[in-house]
């Protein structure tokens, strides 16, 4: 199991949720990155757990750097 962090916004107050479209959320994320967002829209990081198939891993098991590649054969 491997964990990666996904930047995302803290949950805004409930009364604001209905007004948030995906694009507005992305705009807030950009604003948060530049320090211009309201306090409730600060960035947090969400853990995403990745499963590993040992057959699909190569390189040193003790390597300090891990590259995860999402790829498509076609």
């Amino acid at each position: 199991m491997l964990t990666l962090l996904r930047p995302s916004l803290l949950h805004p107050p409930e009364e604001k949720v209905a007004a948030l479209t995906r694009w507005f959320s992305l705009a807030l994320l950009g604003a948060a990155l530049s320090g211009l967002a309201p306090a409730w829209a600060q960035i947090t990081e969400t853990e995403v757990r990745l499963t590993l198939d040992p057959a699909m891993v190569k390189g040193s098991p003790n390597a300090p750097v891990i590259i995860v590649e999402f790829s498509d054969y076609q």
Partner: protein
Amino acid sequence: MLDRILTEYRRKLRLVYKDFPLPGHTLARPAHEAARCAGAAGKYWEYHDRLFQAQPNFERADLLRYASDLGIPAEPFAQCLDGGRFRGLVEADIQQGRLLDVTGTPMFFINGQRIEGAAPFETFKAVIDEALRNVR
């Protein structure tokens, strides 16, 4: 590209490959499942390389032939592919990619740092060198 990176950094890198067949690529998903079937026979990376060489010829007969070319026993491989033995794991990779906002391929995460698309070697080198400085 990644082979060059792995060669250059040798014991400093570990590569984790995740399946992310794109929705419009109808033959990609069985190809990903076939690669995992090859992995079960101990030939994942050989089959993986063969698929990239053979793009976009991923009909069932092609997938079976590539396995045969690599000396993978035909019957268990066909059973694995036809029975969808790894369908759930490929789907799990897709879901994990979506949680990370992966929408296109290839997509890389180097100690969490995202690189989108087929970036030049220098881009990877810069991110890897930075990651190595951070872990020292």
